[in-house]
């Protein structure tokens, strides 16, 4: 369990984290989400005790982090880096060694993960021969091979192709089933939506929303409809009960003031457009994010 209580961090003139609080429970995947520069990495570094908070408290399983706790934690930093001259197998053994893990068990786990990610054949190759994606997988394995109880991943999906992203999502769910506490940060809402039980959305160093995904959606989501059509749909945006419209080629996503307005919308379209599809959308974390944070930051749609 990770408890973060009213944590504040100030860099020279920038307030990086402003009174952030949350709890990530055992056997739960917790998503720390927010745009670039929101303070996610700083928060995670403070949890890892790599930088110290100016005020507030961080507890790992009920007590402040001690040097000996490091063995029970796996950490994948945002800044990926591996010793380039080492062989993959040697490097993984070294990373487990400095965590104080059991040699044989760690080596077996590392082999299992290498096989699972399809890079077992690279075990005897040097790190600098790996592609960026492979190096990331190796780094992920280095984070989990000593079987830590608490896992922190800072932007784990960045730089991975969709196939590898899926592999990683599956890996997260497996680790959760084993009862690990998993905290990860991302600015890609689709990932958070797929695997998180609870989230904390931060923007400009402050908490925006927090809670279980279902709660967040019911509280902050607005009803929306996706229409695929032929014809000129310019009038839709001017309808009184329509809050906003996102236009796609020959499709619209229409946000409504209330769920009751779907019927009115349907009637309003009748006869004016050739509607091929009319679908009620569940509010996506993406739309909530964009509405609450305001601007669509670069990278937030490249899922």
């Amino acid at each position, binding site marked *: 369990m990770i408890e973060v209580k009213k944590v504040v961090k100030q860099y020279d003139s920038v307030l990086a984290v402003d009174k952030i609080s949350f709890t990530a429970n055992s056997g739960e995947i917790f998503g720390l989400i927010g745009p670039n520069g929101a303070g996610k990495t700083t928060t995670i*570094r403070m949890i*890892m005790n*790599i*930088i110290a908070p100016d005020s507030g408290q961080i507890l790992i399983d009920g007590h402040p982090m001690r*040097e000996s706790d*490091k*063995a029970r*934690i796996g*950490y994948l*930093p945002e*800044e*990926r*880096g*591996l*010793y*380039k*001259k*080492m062989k993959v197998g040697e490097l993984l053994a*070294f*990373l487990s*060694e*400095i*965590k*104080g893990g059991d040699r044989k068990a760690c080596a077996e786990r590392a082999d299992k993960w290498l096989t699972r990610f399809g890079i077992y054949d690279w075990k005897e190759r040097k790190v600098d021969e790996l592609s960026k994606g492979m190096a990331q997988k190796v*780094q992920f394995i*280095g984070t989990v091979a000593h079987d830590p109880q608490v896992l922190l991943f800072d932007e784990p999906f960045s730089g991975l192709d969709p196939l590898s992203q899926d592999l990683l999502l599956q890996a997260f769910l497996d680790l959760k089933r084993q009862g690990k506490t998993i905290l990860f940060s991302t600015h890609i809402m689709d990932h958070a939506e797929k695997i998180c039980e609870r989230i904390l959305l931060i923007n400009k160093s402050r908490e925006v929303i927090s809670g279980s995904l279902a709660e967040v959606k019911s509280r902050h989501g607005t009803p929306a409809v996706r229409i695929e059509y032929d014809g000129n749909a310019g009038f839709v945006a001017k309808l009184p009960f329509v809050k906003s419209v996102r236009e796609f080629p020959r499709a619209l996503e229409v946000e409504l003031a209330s769920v009751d307005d779907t019927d009115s919308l349907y009637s309003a379209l009748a006869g004016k457009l050739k509607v091929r599809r009319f679908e009620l959308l569940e509010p996506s974390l993406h739309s909530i994010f964009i509405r609450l944070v305001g601007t669509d930051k670069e990278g937030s749609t490249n899922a």
Partner: protein
Amino acid sequence: MRKLLAITKREFRAAAANKTFIIMTILGPFLILAITILPGLLSSNPSVMGGGKPLAVTTQQPVVQAALEQAFGQQNIQLVTPASEQEGKDRVVSGDYVGYLSVPAAWPQQGAVYYSSSGTEANMFGTASGVLSAIATRLRIQEAGIPADQIEQLLAEPGFQLIRLGAGMQEEEKSENDFLGLLFTALGFVMLIYMTVLLYGQLIGRSVVQEKTMKTVEIMLSSVSARQLMFGKILGLGLAGILQYAVWVGMAGLVINFFGPALNVSLPAAVSMGNMFWLVLFFLLAFFIYAAGYAALGSAAEDEHHLGQLAWPLLIFLMIPMVLISPMVMNPGSPLVVVLSFFPMTSPIVMLVRLLVSSPAWWELALCIGLLLLTIYGLSVMAAKIFRTGILMTGKRYTFKEILRWAARR
């Protein structure tokens, strides 16, 4: 402890398991030999430098011819007589002769001339001028009408002996050759320590900077403490250094005890196993002082270029004994040398030279080593503090003042 060991092992392998290290370890002694002993050997043995070329000489006096032949014969240099003065000069220019010594018929009333294409082969014209002036002196005394037996008496060289006094007042006879051997040994040892300490210091600095530039530092700090990381690096590279010195001392030991006697070549007497012990000891002390310094600067530097800029004070301290090597050997008891042999940043090298060429008192040695150990401790503590603060700092270049402020923190 297991973590520290793992880091030490990794750093040792990173430093020692590569071709550069192996080549340096094997070729190191030869390199040192080449840059310290060879120039001396070559300039005192001109036939090697001259490439076996003869020296052209024209003289009408058999005495001069005979004396020159004898003097240059000792240096394995052949004398030839060119057909004419012009040919002598031409073949100096074309490179057939090392030089051309023209002694006119009217010599010594008229001076001799040495023609050279470079004017720098001091040993050649030095020998020539020495031989000529000795003969000239003898001739002039003869012309003054002094009897032959009296001339011998006048020109007899007085005896001269060089004796080195040890601490226990035991007398040890030295020849001029021993002095040269000592000078070259001191030079060799100093170069060895200077080069290895510089090399390992920079390796440590780079290794620390690379934790930042290769972004491995966060992973390391999520597993070990900053102090474990720094000490692991220093110990790992220190082990590599010890291995290197062990190989070198072993090689010297083999030459002294087996190959030397068998092949009838000998190292200078000063390359003794006793002096080797001091060499290794002072290397280690110098290594740890500079390792701590470079680790501190490495953690404050943004990248390797910046490290180079920050490292100048360390470089200057390392350079001082290098620059002073010759005065130190000539005059090991001077107050400046004594002070430098206690000042921890220069003392490992300076005290080693003092040990080689003179006999410092035991308390001087104890004081020097004690001060070194104290400084190593203090510097490591300071370096660990700078390391803790600096290792995560990126994206900004810090000045010396800021870095020292980190060190002064609690």
